């Protein structure tokens, strides 16, 4: 016998799922952003072979479905390398790598957005390449890239829903389970959709605030 009605506990389940989704989103965003920036720096220093390898791998990651990447890590890695991969590990690896690939592109274009004359002027003053990166490029590049980064984050938050396919108990998976039990797809998926929507809006809001603050010094103050 199965219990087909909604119970108050379903709300707890949904909150739990949302927590898992957001937690994984935060972790993978953090790791992905750090790796992406590191790769951008590799490109900035024009490290010979490494640069081409990075470009190739990021292109591959950007131009293939996240679902396939997930399957490769979750089903392929244990089979090929004989290691144990749990769904959460697979999710963290895949989403971090995917985010890193996109952050890399943003980092590269942000670094390139700073005029050559600034870099040259700084070099003439005797700053090392690292000092130029740290004191001249980084602050401006950060303000430049916060917009694209926010858009990316909103997108990556939605991509996290795919990890439900390999069995991580995130919001989408909880939705699928509730749907199976109650057989009320409209209510369940609407609730899940609203939660994702609100989360995405919240990320966009935070990004907008941050952008405003970072751009405060360069914005038009009026005459």
């Amino acid at each position: 016998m199965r219990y087909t009605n909604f119970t108050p506990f379903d709300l707890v389940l949904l909150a739990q799922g949302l927590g898992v989704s957001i937690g994984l989103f935060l972790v993978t965003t953090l790791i992905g952003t750090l790796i992406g920036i590191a790769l951008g720096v590799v490109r900035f220093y024009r490290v010979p072979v490494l640069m081409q390898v990075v470009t190739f791998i990021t292109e591959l990651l950007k131009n293939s479905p996240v679902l396939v990447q997930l399957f490769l890590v979750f089903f392929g890695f244990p089979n090929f390398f004989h290691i144990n991969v749990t769904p959460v590990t697979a999710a963290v690896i895949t989403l971090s790598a995917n985010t890193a690939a996109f952050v890399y592109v943003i980092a590269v274009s942000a670094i390139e957005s700073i005029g050559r004359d600034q870099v040259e002027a700084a070099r003439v003053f005797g700053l090392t390449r690292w000092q130029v990166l740290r004191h001249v490029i980084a602050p401006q590049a950060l303000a430049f890239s916060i917009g694209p980064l926010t858009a990316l984050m909103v997108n990556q938050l939605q991509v996290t829903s795919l990890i439900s396919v390999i069995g991580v108990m995130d919001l989408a998976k909880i939705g699928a389970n509730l749907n199976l039990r109650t057989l009320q797809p409209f209510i369940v998926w609407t609730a899940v959709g609203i939660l994702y929507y609100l989360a995405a809006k919240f990320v966009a809001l935070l990004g907008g605030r941050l952008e405003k603050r970072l751009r405060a010094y360069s914005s038009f103050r009026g005459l």
Partner: protein
Amino acid sequence: MRFDLGILRPYVGFLAEGALLTAEVCVLALIGSVILGMLVAIARTSSVRWAQWLAFAYVDLFRNIPFLVQLFFFYYGLPEIGLYIDAFTTGVIALSIAGGAYASDVIRAGILAIDNGILEAAEVSGLPRRVTFTKIVLPIALRTSVRPLGSVLINMILTSSILSTITLNELTGNAKIVASETFRPFEVYVVLLVGYAVLTYIVSIAISALHRRLNRDLVEQVS
């Protein structure tokens, strides 16, 4: 374990079948989303307040909810209201609606980029508003948005892999079957990953060529 692609030789035809289905879904969904995107872009640029609001709500909603959730909503929800359609049709509909939100933004940008002088010239020539729109505004807007629409298509190809979760055996779905028949998921998914990347790369080259060809008389503006 050795990396051996020879295992996949008997399955090439099977995978090609899947790729063909992916192509079919994407072409149909592209047509659907461009039509939908056009209508929504018209609503968003119209002077009717409620149409503007409705169009904005649609775009906002479908861009901020994960495609997986949208897909499940349609796949499990539509039979609930007495609409029994197969996975293929559901997939095309869901992809069209999700893609339509992105396409409408692209086309809207194309419409807003049209020089006011052109509209004034049409008005002075005494053309009715409807003719101005269908014969002047829309052709120019569609023409200049070929390249961004191409990236919508590429995104769609990648997103279509998610349709494998509703039992539609397109490229990813077939690859899953091959992986479970050969017990070599690593090889299968590596090939699939590279396959998608190559596929989207070819599409992007084709789109660029088409864009340049269609806009050859205003190269200096769009290039």
